[in-house]
């Protein structure tokens, strides 16, 4: 389970002053469910997910991931999550197998347990064919499959996925969405961010619309549509973020 408690994050810059990237967000994601963060670029999705992954700290408020506090127990939080985004890359001069062995060791997997998990993810993501090839030599799709293998290698109860399909073609995106659905079936808690409406519609059990760092709508797909009095998620989203069509004179 993932729960945030009035979490905030501000960045300070000498030119622009203080920027509130996340401003008092409260969300709750449950095992066996996909929680979707739907927002435009710069809405605060990545900052929120990075705080959940403990790579940055909240300015105030906190969150718990699988029962561990992100401020007080960051290493335990990271040991219990699988994190994947379009910016989490692989080491080009290592083979896919070496990448998995490396992260397996960092997650504390040893001996037969490491071998068992590696065999599982290699078979599950069908990477046998290129597992001994350098990551630099892999195609985008192959790399993404290795990244997914890396993210679930330690069998984490929580998956945090930050726009995992951004920049990928429709076939690779399909593979990733199928993977996310499978992970839900296995009972993992999944927090998934996207700005693609069709992905949110297909995958998410609960959706939170985030804009300027704040949640401006939350619920199931049906509840969101009902609240916005529309039958299209895109229209509901635009309404919630206060989009107004510019009319030229």
């Amino acid at each position, binding site marked *: 389970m993932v729960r945030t408690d009035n979490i905030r994050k501000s960045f300070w810059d000498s030119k622009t002053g203080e920027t509130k990237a996340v401003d008092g967000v409260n969300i709750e994601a449950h095992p066996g469910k996909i929680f979707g963060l739907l927002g435009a670029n710069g809405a605060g999705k990545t900052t929120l997910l990075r705080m959940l992954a403990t790579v940055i700290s909240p300015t105030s408020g906190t969150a718990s991931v699988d029962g561990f506090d992100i401020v007080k127990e960051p290493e335990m939080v990271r040991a219990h999550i699988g994190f994947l985004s379009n910016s989490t890359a692989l080491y080009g001069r*290592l083979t896919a197998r070496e990448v998995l062995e490396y992260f397996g060791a960092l997650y504390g997997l040893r001996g037969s347990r490491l071998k068992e998990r590696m065999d599982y993810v290699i078979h599950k993501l069908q990477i046998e064919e290129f597992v001994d090839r350098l990551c630099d030599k892999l195609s985008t799709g192959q790399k993404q499959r290795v990244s997914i293998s890396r993210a679930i290698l330690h069998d984490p109860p929580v998956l945090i996925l930050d726009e995992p399909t951004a920049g990928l073609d429709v076939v690779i995106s399909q593979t990733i969405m199928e993977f996310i659905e499978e992970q839900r079936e296995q009972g993992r808690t999944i927090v998934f961010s996207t700005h693609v409406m069709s992905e949110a519609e297909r995958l998410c059990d609960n959706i939170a619309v985030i804009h300027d760092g704040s949640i401006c709508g939350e619920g199931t797909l049906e509840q969101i549509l009902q609240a916005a009095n529309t039958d299209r998620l895109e229209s509901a989203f635009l309404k919630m973020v206060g989009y107004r069509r510019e009319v030229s004179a």
Partner: protein
Amino acid sequence: MNRSIIILLKEIREMLRDRRVRNAAFVTPVFMIVIFIYLFGVIEQNVKSKRALPLAFVNAQSNQLSEAIRKADGVTVEDAKSVDEALQMRKDGAVLAVVDFKSDFDKTLASGDASVTIYYDSSEPLSSIAMSAVRETVNELNKSEAQAALKQHGLSTKLLEPITLTAKDIQKKTGLAGSAIVGLIPYLIVLWAFYGGFSIVSDLVAGEKERGTLETLLVSPVTRRQVALGKFFSLAAICFASSMTTLVAVVVVGFLNLPMTRALFPNGLQISALSIIELLAILVPLVVFFAGILLSVSAYAKNTRESQTYLTLVSFLILLPAIFSQFIGFTGAQHATWVRFTPVLNSAVAIREALLGTLGFTPFVAAVAVSVVLGLLMLKVSVWLFSREEILTRV
């Protein structure tokens, strides 16, 4: 296994697979040392070998001095009609110097009042050598003339040299004493201790930030401190290995005893076990210091481009003392207290003395202590930079 060690081993594996690192940290130092030693050998051999010294004579009647000069080693003579003609020959490069005996040379020689003028170019080493050869012959002739005069008056020829100077070289015939490249080796050792790491460090943090692999690492359960330490010690290992490659190359080239390099090691290549221990003790904290600087810059930079810009500036600060160490023998400052406490310079000077087998206890301790303090400080700075959010967000 400790997570820092897991990271260290992975970094070293990745670095060694990078052709740029292999070339910059290992191939280039070997190549450079071979080239340097070869060139030094060629220069030394040329300086020591007898070479032709073409001279132009003006007003050279057959006299005692001109005959003596003609007989000097390597001297060949062309007669010119006037000083102007001879100077033109000098300008054209046909001769190295011009000797003008004056028209009344023979007459004045008999009266002990002869003078001769030599025209040479002090900016040309060979012209200066030709001038020295002539001066030496003049001195010899003066001496023999004076001896003859003394004998004629029944006086002892010892009056010419009432004081006898005996020069004894007290240089220890140990280590690389007497080797012309002993000033160069410490410079190259220090140079590659820095540049070995320079070749990879931008990739190590700033590059990982750009490619997104740093985020992949930071979302695993490792602490920032473990990441910093793993990267730090892998970088220090490469700096150390690159630096050692230089020394190994010197040893290998020295032992090969090639004709061109033989003259560079007049006492043979003798590096004692103590010298090696001293050298390693100086080098280890120095590479820790360098690794700390390099890693801090890379951790601070937004991207590899910014990292390389900062590193280029930093490299000047690091390498200036190293370059100065080559010439410190000419300044007389090598034993000054400020040298012993100047980072990098003190290490280079101490390495030179270790190779010569003359390193004292205090300079050794000072060099090690300064590098240890700065190394620990830079390690702390590196760990602190990794603990900041900017390690990911400053892009």
